[in-house]
């Protein structure tokens, strides 16, 4: 589902055309973190991803005259980013991550290690927890260390999973917006989101089940 540009989008574009620096700053603050995550699907290093984001904003400015309200400003900006990132990746001789985006389910990745469940041949409870998750202590969830564990777990995800969880759960985008920005089907988006969330949950569980 593609959203059309809102009145706000039209006003933002108009302000940029007029050269309103504050609007430019506001937009770059709002989107650059997400743009970085998406760029990192295609290019290897953070430094190159930053260059791609810079090039994207220049592309946005130079393309303002061509912006049509058939898509949202956000979708349009991410399309520019994806094109630049792909070109950059090709120039660097990187194979594009088609498999990660188009066939994310090929290699199975269990959400929870199979050892945590009773074996399939168990006579009463096959596939039932043998080591069940315990409720997490409320007071440790708000601790800065726990936040650190969560942020590191996100950083360590494979790039496509990291981009999806960042857009969906960190930035609060809808699945339609996320699919649009990344060129993903709904199903593949859910596979990537599932794997990302499952790994982050596991990292939190590992940390929170240690003695404080």
């Amino acid at each position: 589902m593609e959203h059309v540009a809102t009145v706000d989008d039209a006003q933002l574009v108009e302000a940029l055309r007029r050269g309103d620096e504050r609007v430019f700053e506001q937009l770059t603050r709002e989107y650059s973190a997400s743009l970085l995550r998406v760029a990192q699907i295609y290019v290897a290093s953070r430094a190159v991803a930053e260059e791609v984001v810079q090039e994207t904003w220049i592309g946005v400015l130079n393309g303002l005259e061509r912006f049509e309200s058939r898509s949202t400003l956000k979708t349009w900006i991410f399309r520019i980013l994806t094109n630049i990132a792909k070109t950059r990746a090709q120039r660097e001789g990187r194979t594009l991550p088609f498999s990660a985006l188009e066939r994310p389910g090929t290699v199975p990745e269990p959400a929870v290690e199979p050892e945590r469940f009773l074996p399939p041949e168990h006579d009463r409870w096959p596939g039932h927890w043998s080591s069940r998750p315990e409720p997490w202590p409320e007071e440790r969830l708000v601790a800065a260390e726990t936040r650190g564990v969560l942020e590191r777990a996100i950083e360590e995800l494979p790039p496509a999973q990291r981009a999806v969880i960042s857009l969906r759960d960190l930035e609060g985008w809808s699945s339609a917006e996320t699919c649009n920005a990344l060129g993903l089907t709904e199903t593949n988006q859910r596979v990537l989101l599932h794997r990302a969330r499952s790994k982050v949950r596991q990292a939190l569980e590992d940390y929170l089940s240690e003695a404080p």
Partner: protein
Amino acid sequence: MTDQIEQLSCQELVELVTDYLEGALPDEERVRLERHLETCDGCRDYVEQMRTTISLTGEARPAALTPEVEEALLASFRDWKAT
């Protein structure tokens, strides 16, 4: 069909959690999953942990641009404006 055959195992349930939370499960599957949750503490806690993971992620600070890159962006904006 007996109840036993319809039962979802915990190992199957953990793979359906995202589809469930996304509202992407067909009704029949959703009912099966919710029935399992009614009787399984481990899975209830698991789903709760997934919800907590999602809300904690929502509070995380995204990795922002470095001040140098922000400066460079503003400089390109001014260049663009001047042309």
